[in-house]
């Protein structure tokens, strides 16, 4: 049992009785102060009271590699609790956009909250009132459009001089890439104001952006130029109203995976609208990018998921993509509430699998035993055949956050791994190709951890070709930011 009493009590005080089930109460009873000293992963869902001013990070290991210049932008919730009411789910905190910059071999960190209508309203009320993925909401909330509840807390997209903080049920929120100052919601076309824009756009190597937005069994397909100009948007019917956090794409196709977690009612919180329909399988809809009316539907066995890897098509037309597959979506519905309360999940973590869609219309899921979340790969190969999947690793039933990163080689089945140890919460890392080098593994891996013992966020660079050697450079902040979700590297 490795959670902190402190974080649980914080959570329990704020959450109210509705989420304190007997299991949760029992888990809390078992926590000890000693556990809290050893691994206080409550830091991962701590509240930040304000922005983090730009500051130079302290180098604690190695040296920044020559040629690594740019910034890692990351997003994730960083404010959950207020005196008058609190978010009840990890996914419903306010988005904090973090910028880890590397220049002249030094690293700096700055972070700013997205200045959303949600955050303004909740600041005024000193209460978290907005409904969300796992939070029912408060009658005091003033919601005239979905963007009034937009937490802008999930991922980041670089567009021109801006970064867009993405949520999945509303508009992108534009922020200045330099200062992280909030500019405002993005309307891509007047008649599409407020249409949802998922937090997982797929970006072609030339910069073109594909994305979806969901509304029950309907999806809008967005196609944007690299500079963010809208090229096309179309609304399409889907075979089922599955929960969809992520889709994937080959060079020529959009691949839309429809898990058996299906919206069957209209209610808040949003996750309560879905039922797990065991035995109905997972459907995969494949659309041609050139002609969205060309549709193929494949059937896979039941699995739940949040995240997919980039897909690719082989010469014979076979489509493959990786998925971090859950047995079901219990984590989505309840687990992330328990995380916010500092309570271990007790459920099985996601494991890496490869979906194979054959030209004859059959499909199969090749499961591995590799525990994996937050899959990433070399962006130069997005949509093309590749060998490697980078992922977080080490999540377990009693510890919902990663301790390690892994690199799976699909050509050999070999799993490379570097474990930061139980003192670290490892966040998503991204693949940064080395300038002028074409090999898939000629890349750096860049991302943060939370050092629980030092109570500080660290920032690491690893060499993809020598992952198991660990970081080639590490820096440490003077503060610990809560765990983030997704990021991008921008040169």
């Amino acid at each position, binding site marked *: 049992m490795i959670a902190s009493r402190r974080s649980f009590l914080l959570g329990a005080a704020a959450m109210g009785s509705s989420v304190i089930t007997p299991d949760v109460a029992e888990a809390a009873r078992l926590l000890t102060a000693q556990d809290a000293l050893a691994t206080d992963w409550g830091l991962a869902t701590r509240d930040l009271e304000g922005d983090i001013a730009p500051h130079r990070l302290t180098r604690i290991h190695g040296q920044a590699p020559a040629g690594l210049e740019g910034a890692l932008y990351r997003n994730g919730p960083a404010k959950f609790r207020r005196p008058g009411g609190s978010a009840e789910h990890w996914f419903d905190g306010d988005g904090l956009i973090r910028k880890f910059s590397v220049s002249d071999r030094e690293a700096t960190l700055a972070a700013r909250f997205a200045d959303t209508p949600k955050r303004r309203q909740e600041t005024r009320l000193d209460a978290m009132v907005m409904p969300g993925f796992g939070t029912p909401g408060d009658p005091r909330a003033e919601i005239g459009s*979905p963007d009034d509840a937009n937490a802008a807390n999930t991922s980041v997209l670089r567009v021109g001089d801006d970064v867009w903080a993405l949520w999945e049920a509303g508009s992108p929120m534009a922020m200045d890439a330099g200062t992280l100052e909030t500019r405002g919601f993005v309307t891509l076309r007047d008649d599409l104001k407020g*249409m949802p824009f998922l937090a997982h756009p797929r970006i072609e190597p030339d910069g073109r952006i594909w994305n979806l937005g969901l509304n029950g069994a309907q999806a809008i397909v967005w196609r944007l130029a690299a500079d963010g100009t809208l090229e096309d948007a179309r609304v399409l019917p889907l075979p089922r109203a599955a929960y969809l956090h992520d889709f994937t794409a080959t060079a020529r196709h959009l691949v839309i995976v429809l898990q058996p977690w299906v919206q069957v009612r209209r209610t808040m919180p949003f996750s309560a609208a879905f039922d797990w329909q065991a035995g109905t399988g997972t459907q995969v809809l494949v659309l041609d990018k050139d002609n969205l009316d060309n549709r193929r539907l494949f059937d896979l066995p039941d699995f739940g998921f949040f995240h997919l890897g980039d897909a690719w098509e082989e010469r014979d037309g076979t489509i493959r993509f990786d998925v971090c597959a859950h047995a079901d979506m219990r984590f989505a519905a309840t687990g992330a509430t328990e995380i916010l309360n500092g309570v271990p999940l007790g459920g099985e973590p996601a494991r890496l699998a490869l979906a194979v869609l054959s030209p004859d219309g059959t499909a199969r899921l090749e499961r591995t035993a590799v525990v994996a979340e937050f899959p990433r790969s070399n962006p130069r190969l997005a949509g093309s055949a590749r060998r490697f999947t980078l992922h977080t690793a080490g999540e377990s039933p009693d510890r919902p956050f990663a301790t390690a990163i892994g690199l799976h080689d699909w050509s050999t089945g070999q799993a490379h791994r570097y474990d930061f140890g139980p003192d670290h919460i490892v966040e998503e890392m991204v693949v940064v190709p080395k300038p002028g080098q074409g090999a898939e593994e000629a890349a750096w891996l860049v991302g943060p951890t939370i050092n629980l013992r030092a109570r500080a966020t660290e920032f690491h660079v690893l060499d993809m070709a020598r992952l198991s050697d660990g970081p080639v450079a590490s820096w440490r902040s003077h503060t610990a930011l809560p765990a983030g979700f997704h990021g991008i590297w921008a040169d």
Partner: protein
Amino acid sequence: MKTRIALIAAAVAALGTAATTPVHAQDSSVTFEFETGATTGSVMVVLFSSQAGYDGNQPVAAMTVPAGRSPVTVTFDGLAPGSYGMKSFHDLNGDGEMNFNPFGMPIEPFAFSNNAVGNMGPASWERARFNVNGAVVQTITLR
């Protein structure tokens, strides 16, 4: 959430068809000064004098005013003293209707009296109602 927000749309969409302005032998009035980001089209405003009317979209008065100058000012006078509520939207493209995105969300700015905002639906009568006795002025932001 989306369905309930769409109710706003249904409520405000009824504005386009309301066109009567009954005259009361009274001298109270309400003036709305609308702030809106655009100068095209017109602002369509309907006034209600009861919860039943407000909830059922049975206005007691309606006005449509070109949006060329800011603020756009609309005055309903000759009102009996009492409780009122107002719904409005900015018909940006002048097609006489409130327009929606493909998922049913309003894409033209709208507002209720008191600048009231609903909770995943139109602002309730409780939030939007205001008292008129004499000359009342409200500044309303269409958003």
